[in-house]
């Protein structure tokens, strides 16, 4: 795990020069949360980032506790030390109309297409076109320039889950193959060039469980085969160790000291008023002890699974960042906290 505990650290940035951060992960691993924290981390110290979602779930709005986002970039948060995070929920239909208008000057023909159902077709059925539009919007945002330079220092894309990420990012290649000439062909090729360049990385979010880790490994293989650059692995919802190491070892061997635990529970007054001298007190302590030891045994099983999964992830040889489980759900404060932890571990410079 890349770690830099120097609190005055201003330099470390594993992804220097990257403009497009694609964030994916298995469903339920918290990829929207990580994407949002990363957008905050990248904006901190005066930069400007765009956080874009493409699945129409309004996950960003739910996370930042604001009304559903329209198809329009709007400022959603101020980063620590100054810096702005803008957010956008990319809507395929609007993106398509914008494209027709902007790139191909097809405003009127666009209306005709809408009438015969071609727009619905393009945006709901043919992901070839749908995903080209979604990746195309990210491409446009990365390349957009203002008077003094790029409008956004970085774009963070909350992308489809690992099961579909390869298809999503590679769709432009497929489309370039299907539409062999014409503006869509050219556009698809330009997007592919950006996605395969040093300016793009794909980060994978996982938790320390078998299926998400397996999917992460599969996705890394798929991305590499497609010449897409794999970024960092973000291990989400890591729990702090609660038990001292010797106790864990003993629990793993199944020989935690019942009698000592029972005595401690009694000493803490958990046997009740009569202590263990009373029959009910003694029975209660026996029950509690058995329950606590059973919980400890399950905990160690879980830690063993986690250790195996960590080992699996380390074979991927990618920078790995760990962020904790947040009790009681993610709120804005928790997001800032996660952003800081990502920056501290070198996922952004955290200026």
């Amino acid at each position, binding site marked *: 795990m890349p770690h830099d505990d120097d609190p005055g650290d201003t330099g470390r940035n594993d992804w220097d020069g990257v403009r497009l951060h694609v964030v994916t992960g*298995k469903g339920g691993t918290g990829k929207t949360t990580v994407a949002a924290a990363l957008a905050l981390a990248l904006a901190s110290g005066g930069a400007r980032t765009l956080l874009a979602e493409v699945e129409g779930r309004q996950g960003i709005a739910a996370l930042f506790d604001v009304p559903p986002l329209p198809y329009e970039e709007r400022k959603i948060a101020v980063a620590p030390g100054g810096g702005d995070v803008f957010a956008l929920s990319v809507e395929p239909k609007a993106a398509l109309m914008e494209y027709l208008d902007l790139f191909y000057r097809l405003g009127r023909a666009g209306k005709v297409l809408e009438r015969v159902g071609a727009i619905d077709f393009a945006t709901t059925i043919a992901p070839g076109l749908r995903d080209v539009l979604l990746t195309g919007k990210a491409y446009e945002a990365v390349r957009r320039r203002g008077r003094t330079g790029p409008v956004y220092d970085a774009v963070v894309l909350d992308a489809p889950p690992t*099961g579909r990420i390869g298809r999503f990012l590679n769709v432009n290649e*497929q489309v370039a193959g299907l539409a062999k000439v014409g503006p869509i062909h050219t556009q698809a090729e330009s997007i592919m060039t950006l996605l395969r360049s040093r300016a793009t990385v794909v980060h994978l979010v996982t938790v320390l469980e078998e299926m*998400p880790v397996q999917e992460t490994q599969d996705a890394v293989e798929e991305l590499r085969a497609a010449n897409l650059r794999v970024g960092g692995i973000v291990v989400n919802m890591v729990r702090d160790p609660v038990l001292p190491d010797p106790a864990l070892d003993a629990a793993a061997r199944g020989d935690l000291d019942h009698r000592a635990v029972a005595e401690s529970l009694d000493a803490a007054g958990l046997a009740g008023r009569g202590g263990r001298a009373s029959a009910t007190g003694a029975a209660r302590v026996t029950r509690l002890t058995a329950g606590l030891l059973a*919980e400890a045994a399950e905990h160690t099983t879980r830690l063993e699974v986690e250790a195996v999964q960590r080992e699996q992830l380390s074979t991927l040889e990618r920078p790995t960042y760990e962020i904790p489980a947040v009790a009681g759900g993610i709120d804005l404060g928790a997001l800032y906290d996660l952003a800081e932890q990502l920056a501290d571990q070198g996922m952004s410079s955290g200026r």
Partner: protein
Amino acid sequence: MATSGTTRGAPGLDVDGMLDDPGIRVIVCCGAGGVGKTTTAAALGLRAAERGRRVVVLTIDPARRLAQSMGLRELDNTPQPVPGADPAGGGSLDAMMLDMKRTFDEVIEAHASPDKAEQILTNPFYQALSSSFAGTQEYMAMEKLGQLRARADADPASWDLIVVDTPPSRSALDFLDAPQRLGSFLDGRLIRLIAAPAKVGGRAYLKVVSVAMNGATGALSKLLGGQILLDLQAFVAALDTVFGGFRERADRTYQLLQAEGTAFLVVAAPAPDALREASYFVERLAQERMPLAGLVLNRVTTAHAAELSAGRALDAAEDLDDDDGHALAAGLLRLHADRMQRREREQTLAARFTGAHPAVRIAQVPARPSDVHDLDGLRDIGVSLSTG
């Protein structure tokens, strides 16, 4: 023995009653990604089989080790017996993994003459459609369900219960919508316009249509390049014989889903997103008059010493902190407090769901310290399903 947290006020879901009811012929497991849909479907299938049903489980995208535990090789697309399922109760268990491209190919082969089928199968547009179009997986899952049901009806010795897992869609609702969307596209106006504008509409419309058409093909060929239109036209021309069939098939599957012998189970985990998705799903099923059996709440945190509250455990741990001799017990108490707090949060979420949907029956399945990779693990989950 783990105490399973019961949701206050939520009626329990009688899973065994559902599995034993010969009137139930199809069980559909749906819900957000990553909540354990496939495992739930497999566990239900195994339990039903060992209680005497003749079951086939249709899985979409199972985790490797789960697939192995059911004896499934890569995408075989035809049901195979699951080794190790106990036949003592007179039942049987088959399982299969969906191969969406092969399923699509089979539909074409079944409905077109051999040379037409050949033309379609080698068309580049068809190849893109059958392997990567959004909704194809959903459409083919429902198509396969229709096929399995037809076979079950034709041959009573085959299966009397089909358990279906649904694809990990962008939205959990996609599998209801996608078949119809794709079906109406394939049978629809646009594709016919592209293929043969003169066929559409009567004479009175001809002029309007062809003007619109020229605009549309002009725009499309400008956008896509001419080649793709030629491919598309060839595809549509070859597909002509199959037209009408797609939408009709999608409609038939939809009706099957609404029928009395079908039971929907919405699967969720006790997390805000998954339960929000479950809520949408429950509402949508009601709207579509699809028969909802209940909610399976997976990976619920349980405690073995539930009589001790989190607050009490933390206080006790603090009392013990002063003496090193009690460090072990203090650690165990904190571990327990953590677990109780998580349990409390989850039950609050579950109670909120029940508040919004008081009639939805719930079965809770305790979280396990490790994943399931064998039939015994699936049996344990089956027991939890029927007692939760």
